[in-house]
């Protein structure tokens, strides 16, 4: 009976000892790239060419993080990333799929004014070849 008791209470010791020979559980970010699942909801990208200025994204945003502003005479969404909760209701509401998710999440900054995503035309280098 004493032997069985000792065996049971040594579970913690066994686990602690065997951890020395196993791979460490730590993922050494930022020296190693973070492993992110596919479909992770990070920062959005906005395709201005698909936008039809309907304003549904701004209407449905639960955090009021989207402001419609005038760009070249049309209403376009401006994203306040300091208020955004990355729920992607804007992407669900957009009838033209102009808002797409990326896996980018390293948004920390010193100055809050940089946490704004203005609607800008996509640079020519990134356009898909026809």
């Amino acid at each position, binding site marked *: 009976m004493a032997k069985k008791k000792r065996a049971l209470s040594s579970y*913690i010791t066994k686990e*602690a000892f065997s951890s020395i020979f196993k791979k460490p559980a730590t993922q050494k970010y930022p020296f190693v790239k973070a492993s992110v699942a596919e*479909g992770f*909801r990070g920062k959005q990208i906005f395709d201005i060419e698909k936008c039809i200025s309907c304003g549904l994204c701004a209407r449905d945003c*639960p955090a009021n993080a989207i402001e419609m502003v005038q760009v070249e005479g049309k209403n376009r969404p401006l994203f306040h990333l300091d208020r955004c*909760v990355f729920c992607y209701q804007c992407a669900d509401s957009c009838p033209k799929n102009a808002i797409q998710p990326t896996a980018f999440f390293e948004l920390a900054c010193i100055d809050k004014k940089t946490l704004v995503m203005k609607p800008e035309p996509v640079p020519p280098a990134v356009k898909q070849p026809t």
Partner: protein
Amino acid sequence: MTQNEVNIVNLLETKLQGKNVQIQPAQLGNATIQANGGTHRDVLKTLLDADEKTAISAITGLDLGQNLGILYHIRTAKAFLTIKAEVPKENPKIATIVDLIPGATFHELEVADLFGVIFEGNSLSGHFVLSENWPEGVYPLRKDVKASEVKLNPAKNVEKSSENDNVVKIIIGPQHPALLEPEKFAVTVEDEIVTKVEPRIGYVHRGIEKASESRTYLQDVYLVERICGICNAIHAASFVETVEKILKTEVPPRAKYLRTITLELNRLHSHLLTLGHACLEIGFDTLFQYFWRDREPIMDLIELTSGNRVYSSAMTVGGVRRDLKETDIPKIKTTLANLRTKIPFYKHTYESNSSIKLRMQNVGTLSREDALKLCVVGPVARASGVDIDVRKDEPYEAYGEIPFKEITYTEGDTWARMNVRMDEIEESIKIIEYSLDHLPTGPFRVKVSRVVPAGEAVNRVEAPRGELFYYVKSNGTAMPERVKVRTPTFSNLPAFLKTAIGGNLADVPSNFVSLDPCFSCTDR
């Protein structure tokens, strides 16, 4: 009407003959009873005599224009009822029910704080969720009060010390290493033994119920999800289920199973979190690190199925937002199988480790009688031998079709509460595996209108911490008229105040964590 409803209506009609009550079956639960002029106490006495498990689930306040409505939501062993009473705004007085059900104290205090109803006979006074510098006579949940126009008095905080040398009042919180959330407990100790605990909550009160009235139903799903970061999926699920009851929409079977999988993954991560946190409070840091190391693969699964480690944002009115990919199912099964192999290690540690036994057994014991009187819910109730679990009593989503065990223990101490959670982890793994094996094909979402027709509904679900209750009233527009949330920790708080008395001061943190408190849920 179901047989249950027939029985309840017959019982009430027989016992309450001659009293001024009107019984409407199959409304707001199994029946609604309109009871004015103090007759709500007679209805409650009838129900208490008929069934020892009668308990108060929530008390909702309503602004009806000239009058204030008070809805008492009562839970019995076989039914869920609502008693409706009305009082005029100029003289909002109603008789208390705390002498019949002691667990109703905090529920009445909250309605008094937010609506201005005076419960005659309830001796506690002062603000409950609102801050000390809140202006007098302004009741935020009344319709004539606008959130942006409230002006607060200058801040002040007065804490009087006691005169007796051996009696010391220790303030724990709002900033304290043992607490993850801000709340204040004034613990009165006499020579190391706790004699009284006075809570002060409301530090996390963000006014969510009022805010939900000025946002659309679509936006409200994300708002109520953020009541609590730990049990977020269940809040969203309960809200969308209540709205679907008003809309009378039937959700496709595949959506029900996908919702069940999300809810059980949420339960797994929450229980592992609490088990680890409890070890941190008794100083067993190694076990805390092991529990949270084994919790990380579950967070990865939540991220895989929904796109975010914590906020799955998977629910929407009419179904779920994302489908589950066939390629993800083997990954989920492998991770759960790995977690299952770790459970015997944790169970043996709990049964044999002397530190855990010394610090958790016979600490914070709650008897079955007290558990029934104080209306506690969830693992706290099940550890004291009260077998209530909404997944079994009133199945929702796919739980009616999935076989699983309801876990109860009889000791009622901290150790029993932790064991209930550990056994529930095994049951959750079984539920997810069954759901994955029997996942129906078909659509995962139906389109619903943005405007909800006028009506009201109640809904209760089993959150990781206990029974979660929602009441939604709609007025025919795209924004709700009233959303009432009663979270499980709100019901369990009186249990902590009772179990801490007579114990050591050093046992207060571990006793506290064993009831799995979530103050962001309580304060809303």
